[in-house]
């Protein structure tokens, strides 16, 4: 698949919502060990509200779909996660503005811009043990994969694998931000819950697109 339409992207996002909702026990368990245990519930509630929105509303464009997705996550989740995961969908919006369908290059640019905005807004960078430590390797993998193919499903699968590598690396990082920083060295050996959630999003998008392709 070389292009993605608003309808297809929306279906993949709905699939992602279901996957995030199902991941709640795993995220809660992880965040209970090295955080205050509310990350999984927050993600579940945010993506559950998002699913309702995606199923019940119509969107005029990919731009509007992504904008509404990000806005809904900010509103439903609150806290730090709401803004950060909302910015994942809002931050790169200029890359898809005015487009009826997007290709792999648009998608890569979209996530690159999102990552820049997340880093700026969160005053954070690689190695701080945040979701960015999964997002940046995901983007690198997408770019590597793009050298060989224009296929969106192949590139999103590469993004998921890159994100998983990033999740593994967070196990060796000391948290610098948020309440996780109270755990410092105790966090070593465990993955960052935000990074895991980011990998769930790419897993959802990748599997969701593959599913649409088969149907």
């Amino acid at each position, binding site marked *: 698949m070389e292009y993605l339409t608003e309808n297809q992207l929306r279906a993949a996002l709905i699939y992602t919502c279901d996957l995030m909702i199902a991941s709640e026990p795993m995220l809660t368990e992880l965040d209970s060990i090295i955080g205050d245990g*509310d990350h999984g519930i927050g993600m579940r509630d945010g993506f559950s509200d998002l699913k309702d929105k995606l199923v019940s509303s119509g969107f005029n464009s990919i731009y509007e779909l992504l904008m509404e997705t990000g806005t809904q996550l900010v509103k*439903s989740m*609150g806290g*730090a996660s*709401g803004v950060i995961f909302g910015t994942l969908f809002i931050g790169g919006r200029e890359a898809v503005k005015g487009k009826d369908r997007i290709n792999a290059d648009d998608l890569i640019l979209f996530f690159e811009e999102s990552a820049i905005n997340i880093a700026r807004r*969160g005053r954070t960078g690689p190695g701080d043990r945040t979701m960015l430590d999964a997002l940046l390797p995901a983007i690198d993998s997408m770019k590597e994969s793009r050298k060989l193919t224009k296929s969106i499903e192949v590139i999103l699968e590469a993004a998921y694998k890159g994100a998983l590598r990033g999740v593994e690396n967070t196990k060796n990082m000391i948290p610098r931000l*948020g309440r996780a920083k*109270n755990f410092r060295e105790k966090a070593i050996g465990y993955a960052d819950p935000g990074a895991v959630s980011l990998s769930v999003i790419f897993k959802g998008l990748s599997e969701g697109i593959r599913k649409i392709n088969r149907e």
Partner: protein
Amino acid sequence: MIWNTDRMDYYAADCILGMTRVFPERWKCLRAGKNAGILMKAEPTPDRFAVIISGGGGNGPFCPGYVADGLADAAVLGAPFAAPNAYAIYEAGKYLGKGSGVLLLYNNFSGDYLNNDMARELLEEDNIQVEVVVANDDIATALNEPRENRSGRTGIALLIKLAGACAQRKMPLRQAADIVRRANERLGTLSMHMYFDRNLIEYGAGFSGEPGIRTENHMDMKRSAREVVELLTESLNPGKDEKLFLLVNRLRLTSYPDSFIMANAVYEALSRNYKVERVRVAAFSNIVDTYGYEFSILCMDDEISELMGNSTATDSFMI
């Protein structure tokens, strides 16, 4: 502890609805939504900038109890222990800031920073004038880091009062924000948690289990008052011409008479070397389920001291 009801999504909203039910002459509700509520004064004051405070919804009186004449114009509450979302802060700012702008004032925690920063951008896109002040008075955090990395604590109560005083005088927003920022630079807070069963006093512990910066094995009140003064003045280094405002925040298990006896002990230790202009004692931010206090000191220059001169009463404390 809070009562973990089956409506935790609406904890902030239910709190605000209760407050407006009890004191309709004081407060009204602008939003009572999922994970976010906006409380404002029953009668907004026109022709001046608005002070908007925000924070997680599991505690009090900070922040909803600070919506009062002479303090904040609105408070935006999130779910328990989670910052309210940016769009709720934006909504409050849009409602109140059309004329003379808004001052967003909050404690320095990741979620509060992120949502207020996003709200600031949204308001600026709507051409509403915004200034931001981030309280970072907790002297026990970010010890070897820049001051702006510190967390905020009860000291924000004094900044809200100062911002409210500037607003009442119809000061331009920019000028008021500069004054509140200047005060923030001269503000410090120290927590003191007491464990009678272990003969242990811990200074500087956080309210989410962060360890303190010093422990002492005694239960001697005068000695602890000296230790509090030592830790705070070491950090603040008050100047000879600065006047001090001492705020004593009573934590949940501390008794009312205890808090006045302790406030007096700290006042006496502090006034030995410094000019203490004013002391206030109350449950200003009833956040930790333990026996103990938070002590805040604001070092005031003449302008700030003059602005902090009048007393302001709310439903639950006087500041």
